[in-house]
C-alpha cells in the first residue's frame, strides 16, 4: 500500500529521465541554466539568512538575560504560521514605489521621480530570499533552541571549572554541540525553499518550481515539465541525504537538561541590540504582516466576500478532511505494522510512505498527472469500447488527485506523530493482551488505539492544517472551477487584490497557529 503512494513519483521520474535527450539539451541551451542558477542562489541565500536569524535568536533566548524573554520565546515561533507568499505580497505593497513607505519618503524629501533617490526593489531574488527566510527561520530557531536546552548542563560546568568564561563556554561547547541540530534545521529550510512556489512566482524569480508550473499550465508540455520536476527531485534527494546524515550526528542530548545554567549578562547597549534584533524578527515575520492583514480585513471586508468565502472554505475543509483522515488511517496501519510484525522488512512501508514529505507540491502534482491521466484515458477507452458514456477524468481531473497528492505529501507527518506516540507505549503492552487470551483485533481496539488516541488526533490535526495551507498541488491538480481558500488568495494576490481576500488569509494564518501553540505547549510540558 505504501508503494502505491510512491508509484506516481517513480512514473514521473522514469518519464523525466526518458524525456528525450534532445529536449534536455534544448532546455540546457535555453532556460535551464537560469532556472538552476536562481534555484541554487535562492536556496543558498535563504539557508544563510535563516541560520543567521535562527541561531542568533536561539542563542540570545537561551543563553542571555534579554528582557521580555518569555514573550520573545514563543513570538519568534509564530512566523511559521505565515505563508511566505502572503508576507511577500504585503511587503511589496508596503515597500513598492506606490507604497506608503516610498510615498512618505518622497513627501519628506521632496523627491519627484525614481531617478531622484535609491530605494531597494523587493521584487528580486534578494527580496524573495529575505521574505522566505523571515518565515522559515523559526525552524532553525526552534531546533537550535531545543538543542541548547537539552545540552548536558554538566558540560558547561566542566568547561567553566576548566577556566572558560560563560561566553567562551558558549562558543567552544554549546555552539559546536548544537551543530547537528542546526544542520537538520538548515536542510528543512532548504527543502521548504525548494518547494516554494507562490513567492517566487509573485516576485517573478524564475526557478524550477515556477518553470514546472509554466511548462505544464502554459505550454501543456508534459515531458518537459516531468524532466524539470525530476531535476528538482535530484536537489531534494541530496538535501534529504544531508539531513539524514546530520540527524545521525544528534547524539548530544542529555538526561540532565540545561534548565538553570548561568546566563550571559548583557550590557545596556548589548541588551538594546539583542532586543532590536529579536523584536525585528518577530515583527517582520509575523506581527506586522498579521496586523496589516487585520487592517485590510477591517477596511475592505464586506458581507458578500464573507459569503463567497464559505464555499471556498468548505472546499478547503473537505479536501483537508479527506487528506487528514486517509493519512491518519494509513499512518496507523504502517506504524502498527512496523511495531507488531515480525517481518524483517517491517519498517520499509513506513519509510517509503514518509518519503513524500520532502517532495515539493509541484513535483507531486506532475507525478499525479503523468500517472493518472493515462489511466483515465484507458478507463474512457474501455467505456467507449463497451459503448458506455465515459466517466471523464475521474482520477486526474477530480479531487481524487488532489487528495492523493496531499496524502503522499503529508503522510510523513502522521507517521511521525503516531510513531512517537507508539514509542511511549512499552513493548510489554504488545505481549500482555495475548498472555491474557486476547487476539490481535481485541488488542488493537481495546489497548493500542485507545492509548494512541491523543497522537491520532494530533496527527489528524497537523495534516488537516498543512492541507489547508498547501497551494501548488491544488493549483495544478484542482478540477475546473474548484477554488479553495489558498487558491482564492493566490488568485487575488496575482491580481493585486489581496485586500479582498484578507479574511481568508487571516483564517489560514490562524489555522497555522494551532500546531505552533500545540508544539509550544507540549515542549513546555516536557
Amino acid at each position, binding site marked *: 500500500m505504501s508503494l502505491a503512494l510512491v508509484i506516481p513519483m517513480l512514473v514521473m521520474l522514469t518519464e523525466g529521465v526518458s524525456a528525450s535527450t534532445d529536449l534536455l539539451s534544448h532546455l540546457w541551451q535555453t532556460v535551464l541554466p537560469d532556472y538552476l542558477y536562481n534555484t541554487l542562489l535562492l536556496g543558498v541565500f535563504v539557508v544563510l539568512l535563516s541560520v543567521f536569524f535562527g541561531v542568533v535568536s536561539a542563542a540570545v533566548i537561551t543563553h542571555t538575560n534579554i528582557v521580555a524573554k518569555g514573550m520573545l520565546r514563543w513570538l519568534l515561533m509564530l512566523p511559521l504560521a505565515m505563508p511566505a507568499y502572503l508576507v511577500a505580497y504585503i511587503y511589496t505593497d508596503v515597500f513598492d514605489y506606490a507604497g506608503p513607505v516610498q510615498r512618505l519618503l518622497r513627501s519628506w524629501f521632496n523627491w519627484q521621480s525614481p531617478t531622484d533617490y535609491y530605494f531597494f526593489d523587493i521584487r528580486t531574488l534578494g527580496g524573495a530570499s529575505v521574505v522566505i527566510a523571515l518565515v522559515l527561520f523559526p525552524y532553525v530557531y526552534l531546533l537550535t533552541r531545543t538543542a541548547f536546552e537539552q545540552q548536558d548542563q554538566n558540560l558547561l560546568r566542566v568547561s567553566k571549572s576548566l577556566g572558560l568564561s560563560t561566553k567562551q563556554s558558549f562558543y567552544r561547547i554549546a555552539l559546536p554541540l548544537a551543530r547537528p541540530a542546526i544542520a537538520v534545521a538548515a536542510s528543512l529550510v532548504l527543502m521548504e525553499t525548494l518547494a516554494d512556489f507562490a513567492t517566487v512566482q509573485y516576485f517573478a524569480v524564475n526557478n524550477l518550481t515556477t518553470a514546472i508550473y509554466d511548462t505544464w499550465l502554459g505550454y501543456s508540455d508534459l515531458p518537459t515539465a516531468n524532466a524539470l520536476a525530476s531535476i528538482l527531485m535530484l536537489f531534494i534527494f541530496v538535501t534529504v541525504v544531508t539531513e539524514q546524515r546530520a540527524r545521525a550526528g544528534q547524539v548530544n542530548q542529555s538526561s540532565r537538561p540545561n534548565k538553570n545554567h548561568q546566563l550571559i549578562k548583557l550590557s545596556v547597549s548589548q541588551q538594546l541590540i539583542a532586543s532590536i534584533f529579536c523584536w525585528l524578527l518577530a515583527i517582520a515575520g509575523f506581527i506586522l504582516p498579521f496586523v496589516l492583514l487585520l487592517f485590510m480585513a477591517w477596511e475592505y471586508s464586506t458581507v458578500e466576500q464573507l459569503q463567497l468565502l464559505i464555499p471556498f472554505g468548505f472546499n478547503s475543509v473537505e479536501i483537508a478532511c479527506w487528506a487528514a483522515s486517509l493519512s491518519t488511517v494509513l499512518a496507523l496501519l504502517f506504524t502498527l505494522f512496523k511495531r507488531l510484525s*515480525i517481518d524483517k522488512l517491517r519498517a520499509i512501508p513506513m519509510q517509503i510512505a514518509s518519503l513524500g514529505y520532502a517532495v515539493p507540491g509541484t513535483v507531486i502534482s506532475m507525478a499525479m498527472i503523468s500517472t493518472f491521466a493515462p489511466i483515465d484515458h484507458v478507463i474512457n477507452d474501455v467505456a467507449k469500447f463497451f459503448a458506455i458514456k465515459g466517466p471523464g477524468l475521474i482520477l486526474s481531473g477530480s479531487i481524487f488527485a488532489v487528495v492523493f497528492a496531499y496524502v503522499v505529501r503529508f503522510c510523513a507527518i502522521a507517521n511521525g506523530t503516531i510513531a512517537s506516540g507508539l514509542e511511549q507505549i*512499552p513493548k510489554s503492552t504488545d*505481549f500482555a493482551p*495475548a498472555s*491474557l*487470551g486476547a*487476539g490481535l483485533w481485541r488488542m488493537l481496539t481495546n489497548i493500542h488505539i485507545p492509548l494512541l488516541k491523543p497522537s491520532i488526533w494530533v496527527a489528524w490535526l497537523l495534516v488537516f492544517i498543512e492541507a489547508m495551507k498547501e497551494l501548488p498541488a491544488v493549483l495544478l491538480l484542482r478540477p475546473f472551477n474548484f477554488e479553495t481558500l489558498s487558491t482564492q488568495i493566490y488568485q487575488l494576490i496575482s491580481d493585486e487584490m489581496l485586500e479582498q481576500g484578507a479574511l481568508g488569509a487571516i483564517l489560514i494564518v490562524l489555522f497555522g497557529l494551532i500546531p505552533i501553540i500545540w508544539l509550544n505547549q507540549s515542549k513546555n510540558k516536557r
Partner: protein
Amino acid sequence: MTELLNINALSVELQGKLILTDVSLSLLAGEILGLVGPSGCGKTTLLNTIAGFIHQTKGELIVRGMRPITSKHRIAPEHRNIGMIFQDYALFPHLTVEKNILFGIGDLKNIEQKERLTRLIQLLKLSDYELRYPHELSGGQQQRVAIARALAPQPKLLLLDEPFSNIDARLRQELMLEMRQLLKELNMTAIFVTHNKDEVFTFADQIAVMHQGRILQTGKPASVCHQPNSWQVADFLQLGSWIPVKRNAGNEYESALGIVRLCNDELSKVELSNVQRCNQKIATAFSYQLLLKPRFIEINDSQNYNVVVEHISITEQGYHYFFKSLSSSSDLAFEHLSYYSHDLFELGQSLAVNIKTHDFLFFDK
C-alpha cells in the same frame, strides 16, 4: 505429581543468531522454577518462547492438555493459556484496576467474572483500589494488580519476568515470601526469571542455570550449589574463589598454596568425573580451576608466606579479606581468594595459607 511442562531440544534463532541452543527442561505441576543466568544468556527469550511471543526454530514444547508445539505446529500465544507477569507489569494505563483484572476474562458470564474479581481483589489485598488507575498505585500495588490480572484467566502456567527487579530492596523479601505463599496456595506452576541468585533460594523449588543460550544445570537450589557441574554454574552462583591448579602425576595437583593430593575414595572419583564431563579435551589440558570456599582454607604459623592481603572489609561474620598469591609462577597465580576471620590483618601483610582436606571441586574454565 505429573509433568505440566516439557521442553525438548528447543532452539531459537533470531536475526540469524542462535539465542537458545538445545534447551530441555521439565516441570511438575505446582512447582516453581527459578531461571537464572547472567544478562543476555537467553532467559527472557526462553520465557517469551514458552509464552509464544517468539517462535522456536527447532524442538518441541509440550504443555499438559495441549497438542505439542513445534516450529511447524504453532499455537498463538492467546490460545496457550499461559499467563505472564512482565518486568514493567505492562498494566493498561487507560483502564482501572478492576478493568485491568477483568481484561482476560471478558468471555465469562458476568457472575463468574464478579466472583473471580472479588476473590482476587481479596487475595491480593487490593480492595479500595478497584477504581484507581495504575499510575495512582505504588510499585508493590501495581505488581499485585499485575499478578491478579495474570491469575484471573486461571492459566496453567505462570511466567514471571524479573518480577522483583523494580521493587525496593527492603520490600522485596517480604513480597517474595507473600507471592510464593500465594502461588503455593493456588497450586500454580510457575517459571520466574532473575539475574539475582539470592531470589532463587527464597522463591523457587527448582533452579535452572543458563549460560550463552544453554541450560547448564537444573535441580534443587541446594543440590546445585553443593554440586555445581561446571565452572560457569559455580561462578555465577559465586560459590567460592577460584585458584588455578596444574595436574602433576597421578592424583597430585600443584597450586600456589601447595600440593593438593586426592585420596582414592569415592568422593574424589566423583569430582574427577566432574572434570571429565565438562572438559572434552582433558588429555591436552592439564590445568584446572579449583573452587575454594572460605571455610576450606586456614592460616598457619609457618614462615612460608604464599599470599598477601589485598582488600579488607567488615561484615557480620568478621573481617572479609581478599588475598592475592605471592607465587612467582604466572600459571598458578590468583588475584582474589576470599577469606573470613575475626583476626585483624593489615593491608599488604604476607600470610601463609593452606587448603584443608575436603571434597575438592575441579573445573575447566
